[in-house]
């Protein structure tokens, strides 16, 4: 299991928020990438 902090709870909360925010950004970028990819695949298949 991920380690539990021994330090300041506010600091832990801020770190947790930061990690979640980074994951959300990464997920959004992946989703946008796949939207573009599927569009490009569709165009490529149609022109094939």
């Amino acid at each position, binding site marked *: *299991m*991920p*380690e*539990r*902090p021994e330090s300041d*709870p*506010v600091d*832990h*909360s801020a*770190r*947790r928020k930061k*990690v*979640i925010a*980074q*994951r959300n950004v*990464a997920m959004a970028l992946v989703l946008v990438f796949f939207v573009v*990819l599927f569009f*490009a*695949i569709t*165009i*490529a*298949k149609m*022109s*094939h």
Partner: protein
Amino acid sequence: MTQPAAAQSLPLPADWRDFFALTKPRVMSLVIFTGLCGLLAAPGRINPVLGFTAILCIALGAGGAAALNQWWEADLDAGMRRTRERPLPAGRMERGAARDFGLLLSAASVLIMGLANGVLPAVILLISIIYYAVVYTIWLKPRTPQNIVIGGGAGAFPPLIGWVAATGEITLMPVVLFAIIFMWTPPHFWALALFVQSDYAKVGIPMLPVVAGEAATRRQILIYAVLLLPLSLVPWWIGGTGAVYGIAAAALSVVFLALSARVGLRRRTGPDDSMRPEKQLFAWSVLYLFALFGALVVDRWLV
């Protein structure tokens, strides 16, 4: 409970870098490269978008299989120096998250490959994922010292998939490329196993050096290197490539054989042995595969 206290009781979620690490990026680079070479060396031309998608799916599939491998082997990884800092044994991620991530990547790779490149490459990709995550990781690796020999097939799939994605059919050439990586894998891994064998022994993985001893392993390395030399020339002999590949393959394989002979014919001098020949063979084996498949593409496009 106050809000900060409640937040403190929640575990820190895994970072996106930990998910990325689950995919074994360094192994994936070799997978992407050989898959790309298979795709580029194939006759005919593939739409760049579909070609990119094929390579992406090969990478996603390899990443998914690697994540499933780490999910299954988390306890073993914790006992080995080389692997104990991975996200699961280091405690930075929950096991269920690794499993779900692996399944998601694997399923997505097969589905997208099927949509973009056809059923045949998608089926081969699915077989390769099952081969690595189930046949190798769960079944063979903990049971037989020949795990690497048969498990090596998993790493041999990418050029086959790349070729089939480009052509839509299985012919002799991609099967030969599969066989080359299949034959290359045992000396590559056993060279590594020779200088990290104490770690494998500690967690009870029956690697050949642990079970059959060093002498047998060194002999087997030499045997596979001898077989690899003529096999690497088969693409040239059957007319699948030109002389550039043939000469490069001969030169690379002769060096591979020479380094393997040095490993195969020597004995460890003592506990302080630096295992330099084994480390050199391992390093050359990685370079060998990059150079061999690079020559395949150069031969196809630049000559």
